[in-house]
């Protein structure tokens, strides 16, 4: 009597395992299916090279570049904030701080990643932007620098904890050899540890950018909803994610070309983050092997 029950349970459990595969397949099928229909009406070339994005206007243009540059702009600003701060935290915790300090501070830093993103968006719009406006003349109420900075604060723990893992994985012998030669901690860090841990640090950078690229509410609240093709951080822009939210909030009729734009835009977003995530997974496996 026991055997059939055991088998049934195993089958049920296996089905939940399959669910994860179905999720990925579902995402792929939906994005491809809707995008194919979208590209029946809009040429791929026009989509990828056009510099105007006005699907919701009467004169429709479908160039994704303004959304893409806005997405990259905000993510790069976030990285410029998070990388120096996150990396120096990782170095400090790993090489300078004592164990007790480290174990108290690390969970505190995680708080930065646990704050809901609408809250960060509100911070960007109502605190950071007015603050920056006080000394940057001509800074618009919506801009990419302010959400970029706030997004940077959000991804600090991501960079610091992943980089710390990478620094920690450097064999003790290398560190000891450097100190044995009379190097200071600073010299050891920058001439021995960081070069040795570089692939792990690059993993943290890629994952952090990927996280910033997919971030939605912060930019939707504080970066604006105007698809400008620009790299100027002081003017309103619209990221891919913001556009998807903007369409979702409106009353776009189903099966219209406007409706399909969110799938085409989503496809671009998915491809970028997918490639970045897999490059980082591949690098991670590579550096794990390196020191085994």
């Amino acid at each position, binding site marked *: 009597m026991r055997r059939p029950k055991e088998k049934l349970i195993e089958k049920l459990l296996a089905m939940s395992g399959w669910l994860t*595969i179905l999720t990925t397949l579902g*995402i792929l099928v939906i*994005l491809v299916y809707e995008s194919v229909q979208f590209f029946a009406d809009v040429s791929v070339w026009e989509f990828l090279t056009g510099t105007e994005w006005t699907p919701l206007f009467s004169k429709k243009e479908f160039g994704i570049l303004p959304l893409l540059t806005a997405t990259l702009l905000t993510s790069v600003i976030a990285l410029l904030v998070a990388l120096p701060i996150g990396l120096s935290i990782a170095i400090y915790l790993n090489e300078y701080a004592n164990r007790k300090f480290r174990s108290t501070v690390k969970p505190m830093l995680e*708080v*930065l990643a646990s704050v809901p*993103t609408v809250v960060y968006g509100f911070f960007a719009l109502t605190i950071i932007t007015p603050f920056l406006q006080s000394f940057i003349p001509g800074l618009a109420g919506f801009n990419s620098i302010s959400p970029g900075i706030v997004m940077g604060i959000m991804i*600090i723990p991501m960079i610091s904890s992943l980089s710390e893992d990478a620094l920690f994985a450097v064999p003790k012998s290398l560190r000891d050899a450097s100190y044995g030669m009379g190097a200071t901690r600073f010299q050891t860090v920058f001439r021995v540890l960081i070069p040795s841990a570089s692939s792990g640090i690059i993993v943290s950078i890629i994952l952090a950018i990927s996280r910033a690229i997919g971030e939605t509410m912060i930019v939707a609240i504080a970066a604006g909803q105007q698809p400008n093709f620009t790299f100027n951080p002081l003017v309103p822009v619209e990221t891919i994610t913001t556009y*998807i939210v903007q369409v979702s909030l409106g009353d776009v009729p*189903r099966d219209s070309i406007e409706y399909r734009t969110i799938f085409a835009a989503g496809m671009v977003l998915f491809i970028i983050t997918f490639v970045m995530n897999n490059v980082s997974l591949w690098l991670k496996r590579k550096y794990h092997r390196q020191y085994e």
Partner: protein
Amino acid sequence: MNNSTKNRLTDKAFQYFGIFNTFLGLVMLAVFIFVIMQVGLPRLNWDFITSLPSRFPEKAGIYTALIGTFWMLFLTIIFSVTLGVSAGIYLEEYAKKGWFSKLLEINISNLVGVPSVIYGILGLAFFNRYLGLGGSLLAGSLTLSLLIIPVIIVTTRESLKAVPKTIKEGAYALGATRWQTIWKQQLPAASGSIVTGVILALARAIGEAAPLIVVGALVYVPFIPHTPMDDYTLLPIQIFNWTSRPQPEFQVNASAGIIVLLFLTFLLNGISIYLRNKWQKKVKW
């Protein structure tokens, strides 16, 4: 100044730079929260929590959003815990090491990295449109579950991995079947850390707005949902809506809403940290 002193000074300087950076983000967050409290706390009262949304900022409250958030949390727990924990058990205890389990593993690492708004698109096309669930709580919670299931799977696997092999072998030796061993021995032993991980995942889910806006959550709902098929709004979406209005009175409402949302988020995080510490102290394998 000779080289050695210079090196030592650089070293010291970097040390202070490191301490400074360690607290920079936290201090900024503290300042943000302080400003929010200043603006929002005076607005935060019982009426604010029990009032329906309104065009008039001084009358508007978060009642529907709060009830929507609790509904969402409740349904998401049911779906994500059953499916996530089962998948985790399967991967850790049943799946044979081979190409399939490798594929599953790579797939799960990928799903963790997919932007939440993409899950929203999946939910919109599949739950909302294809299954015809519309903008219901059910469609939203299924979408949110898909988003956190990968995290729960990873947690479950790590928790099961931490249970000593001797417990499993002991159960087998007494003639227990595989499932009896898992259900009566391994799962109870791993439950503390699974619960910790699940609460952490929920703390993240409670603040999600983007995927749920895409899957059809509404911005304005003048009633509270009574069944999983009802329309709904959520606290983060209500905050987003107030934030995007020009009148300053709505910004005050947004601040008060943020205090409630942060309270819930930190509460969940706090519970999970508390449980983790308690668990770690109690269990010495």
